């Protein structure tokens, strides 16, 4: 395969890696959320991505758009909570953008990211700085808008992942304005937002498929 084309097989592999990463980080996410939320974020995501993984075989002959839409529906249904609605919407929106495609190029990926962010923002009403997953995702989208070619190389993904990491880290000093942590007011400061962290792990998992 060419370096600048992302065939369906790679997308499916990426989804599997996401599941593996989430399973690995489940305990860490739970610990993080014990500080400022209800400790279920890791458990919820793991339940959802496990279901995604077990459904993947039955999706392989669908187009990428259908696959991602289905992933969105599974996450909505099986993750539940805020993250299920938000990640679910993100995949749904991204999938709608990729209708009929059997492989993606860098522009497709950029568009998918833009739509995913749009979905999350319209569904949850949060903005940058509210101490949510948006604080990880939005800087990545902004970065890709200027550097979409980075998705084509391993080194590019290292940079993208770094941007996600910085976004995630930025939540540490924020006071939460949306989601469960917002009830804590000032007490939410000093802790990473679990959704921002899971979002970082998902982006990291995407990049790790690139050789």
């Amino acid at each position: 395969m060419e370096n600048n084309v992302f065939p369906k097989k790679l997308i499916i592999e990426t989804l599997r890696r996401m599941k593996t990463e989430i399973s690995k980080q489940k305990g860490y996410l739970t610990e993080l959320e014990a500080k400022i939320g209800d400790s279920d974020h890791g458990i919820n995501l793991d339940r959802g991505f496990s279901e995604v993984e077990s459904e993947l075989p039955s999706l392989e002959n669908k187009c990428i758009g259908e696959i991602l839409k289905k992933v969105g529906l599974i996450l909505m249904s099986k993750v539940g909570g805020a993250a299920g609605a938000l990640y679910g919407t993100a995949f749904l929106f991204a999938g709608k953008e990729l209708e009929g495609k059997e492989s993606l190029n860098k522009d497709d990926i950029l568009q998918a990211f833009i739509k995913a962010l749009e979905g999350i923002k319209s569904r949850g009403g949060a903005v940058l700085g509210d101490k949510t997953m948006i604080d990880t995702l939005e800087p990545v989208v902004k970065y890709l808008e200027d550097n979409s070619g980075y998705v084509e190389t391993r080194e590019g993904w290292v940079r993208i992942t770094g941007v996600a990491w910085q976004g995630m880290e930025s939540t540490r000093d924020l006071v939460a304005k949306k989601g469960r942590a917002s009830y804590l007011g000032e007490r939410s400061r000093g802790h990473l937002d679990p959704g921002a962290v899971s979002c970082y792990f998902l982006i990291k998992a995407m990049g790790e498929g690139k050789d």
Partner: protein
Amino acid sequence: MKKVMNDPQNIVQEMLLGMEASAPGFLKKLNGFDVIVNKDLKEERVTLISGGGSGHEPAHGGYVGKGMLDAAVAGPVFTSPGPDQILEGIKAIDKSKGVLIIIKNYSGDVMNFQMAVEMAEMEGINTDFVIVNDDVAVGESSQRRGIAGTVFVHKIAGARAITGASLKEVKETAQKAINNVRSKGIALDPCILPHNGQPSFQISSDKMEIGLGIHGEPGIKQTEVLTAREIAEDLVISLKEDLGLETGEKIAVMVNGLGATPLMELQVLFNEVAMLCQNSGIKIIKTYIGNYMTSLNMAGLSLTFLRTDQDLADLLNAPVCTLSFR
């Protein structure tokens, strides 16, 4: 971790099956969905659905039955159910007179229930919703959580619905209850989650949390352990102020245990509340003491005041047949 359970993966389903088996006369679990419905729903009328994450038992399944909810959707522990589950519940109780959805104000619940509403509308079902935000511990009211006061909203809206009122009227009644209900809680100890056996937050043995939610999350501030009298004062003052309660007004009171609080302690607290109300000339017309909206096995309680006029009092007192409210 010690829990009476089998596989934590199945705990919600097994609970719902147990609930169904315990009330075969009037409760049914929807096959394949984590939804409990009132099984002899014959009248053509507005129907009511609520729900949210599990772990708040008897909420919400315990409030399904004649005169209260028609369906309750149960998500995983402390996790809002997805829109597909909620939609299924809506479809199961739709009598084409409209379905009112009672949502507790949490991002997850609001998002998932609203998605379900959108899906129901697409299927041609007439729906509307209200959002309960009774927790005065959180400052801004749009951000306020829905906690134990939600149970009063279920009861009052349910009593209105069986009179044959329209969806608009039932919604207005529910909103009236919401406008007049406030709650605030305290916690002494966290709960233990079934999936990982860990306490939901850390707290030392001489501290308590004020203004906590019902998802095992910590409160808005930590203090020394206060006496029942001090706790009652803090809670009563907050609720009175926020409701703007005045001498001569009438209220219903709920002292709600969070799951691991002995009834003895709830009654001791109510004793203080009753004295404080008497001293300020507020008349308690009805009292509910017990576990109504829990947080698994959290130690602590919440206090709820519902300001009542004759209308709300009558609706609260109307007959009801559910597992856990009367």
